[in-house]
């Protein structure tokens, strides 16, 4: 991960190998977010220059997609499926429990940056609902008690 806003050189080192791919902007944004954990504002002008696009066009792409974020992720990132199959197995109750337990509403991060809570619309685990993801690891048939265990494990990680 970059410690600060990455320099032009750091960004170029990441994206130059991808320049030969047709339509490379999304591929580059993924590479940047994988490396940095987010899409820092400093990459926008560099990408615009390199791809001969306006800054607005690059910003427009970044903001269109729910996956790309403009600030570093929380230490524990919780994504709860809110779609129909999970609702059919009382996903709303699980979601309410998660909100209550983390003291966060969906879309919020805790003030100290330790936990963030996000909705996700289907993880494709609909035959084992309700499902959620914590720090990229998927969990199915999650009960409120199971969520508390998983959260404790995630928070205990160094």
């Amino acid at each position: 991960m970059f410690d600060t806003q990455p320099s032009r050189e750091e960004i170029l080192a990441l994206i130059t190998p991808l320049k030969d791919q047709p339509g490379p902007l999304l591929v580059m944004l993924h590479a940047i977010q994988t490396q940095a954990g987010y899409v820092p504002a400093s990459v926008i002008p560099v990408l615009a220059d390199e791809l001969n696009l306006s800054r607005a066009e690059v910003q427009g792409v970044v903001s269109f997609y729910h996956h790309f974020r403009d600030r570093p992720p929380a230490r524990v990132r919780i994504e709860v499926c809110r779609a129909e199959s999970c609702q059919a197995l009382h996903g709303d109750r699980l979601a309410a429990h998660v909100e209550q337990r983390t003291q966060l509403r969906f879309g919020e991060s805790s003030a100290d940056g330790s936990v963030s809570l996000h909705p996700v619309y289907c993880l494709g685990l609909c035959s084992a609902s309700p499902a959620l993801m914590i720090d990229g690891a998927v969990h199915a048939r999650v009960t409120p008690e199971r969520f508390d265990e998983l959260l404790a494990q995630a928070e205990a990680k160094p």
Partner: protein
Amino acid sequence: MSAVSVYVPRDASAVALDADGVAAEIGRQARERGVAVRIVRNGSRGLSWLEPLVEVASPEGRVAYGPVGTADVANLFEAGFLAGAPHRLSLGPIDQHPYLKSQQRVTFARVGVIDPVSVAEYVAYDGFQGLREALQTSPVDIVRVVTESGLRGRGGAAFPTGIKWKTVLEQAAPQKYIACNADEGDSGTFADRMLMEGDPFQLIEGMTIAGLAVGATQGYIYLRVEYPHAHRVLGEALAAARRTGFLGQNIMGSGAHFDIDVRLGAGAYICGEETSMLESLEGRRGEVRVRPPLPAIKGLFGMPTVVNNVITLASVPAILHKGAEAYRQLGSGKSRGTLPIQLAGNLKHAGLVERAFGLTLRELLYDYGGGSASGRPLRAVQIGGPLGAYVPASQFDTVVDYETLSGIGALLGHGGIVAFDDTVDMARMARYAMAFCAHESCGKCTPCRIGSTRGVEVIDRIVAGTDREQNLALLNDLCETMVHGSLCGLGGMTPFPVQSALKYFPEDFLPQSPVASR
């Protein structure tokens, strides 16, 4: 003593139930006990309530145990599961399990059976036979076989695959593309994911055959970012296919060339719409394109492009190998072949059922699904994802095929069925449909962008009992505008779940709803 093969799925649904922990524990215990095991990470058989489902290769065939937790592993060793011995979690020979035995697995024949990233196992189970056939067949004849098979697009639109391919074949262009739509965003669907995680070579083979058929040398798999497990499996499988000469330059020594890249989506549901997916593949905002021109004529980077769903492309190798007639013989009416149906939501036995078209909803929900998981009566199902209509229990005798469902105002979509018990509040589900559309709208057309937000507000007023009759008329009007005025299916189909909920469950939209959960 040779190592005993033990199968522990790497499918995301099994991993989400701690299959990785179980596999690690089996390995650890085997080392401790000094017994040799070969742990194979297979796909899932689709019996999700039994995951993690562990299988042992015994002389009598594959015997299964499940659901296995890490705490059960020591006990399984002590009971002698490596020799297929009985245990509290025994399920017997997995092939004989009633859920599987009655299925007609064509596209999912290898899923859960083989190591998904082993070319040798894929070949041993009839893999690349369709490609071998295609390499000896002219493009026109490949297209003819696919047309004659009756295969229709499994992504939801159900357009005849052969006709789409014929259009692309007939275009003269310096470059053509095969774009596989793996942006499986519909809630209640997971067949694409299971196929990619359980038998990725079949998709690779299908895309390669499509390339040969239309004269394309490059394919893209547009995969949703919510599927990291599928991403890893595809990466391993593509590398293995290239290494063994089944992909890339000079495929199987034929001189033909075809290659595939995986491109990740970024959490936009709309990118499952084909023109929006093409925009996203080109690195832009996933905004819908106005048709015409059709992607088959002017698609990716302005070139003729076959856009097909994962299951559609994965159905092709068997059609080339076994012939159009073998596939065509299966099915009902104009819906030919098999359909991998995904049973989801409030069902006791949710999972994947592949059968020829022709089953009724009741057979699927009760004979396979085992009724509700909660033990309460089923009240409604939603078929075909968040844009699909709700079907009430009184219509559960409907046959699940394209024409019959559209006859009752529903649609099959990608074959996902989400079941709800009698605690469901259908007004709330209708409101959710509009809210989801508002969340995911690309914003290009007004009926979808604005209509969805207004729809949420109008439903709120109806449920609150505010000017009820006027607001019901307004909702109806709004739905008509969205259906007829939207550029694509997102705005154009969001009214289906809303209007079906209102039609069949009007009592839920009253301020004093009888629904148990309120």
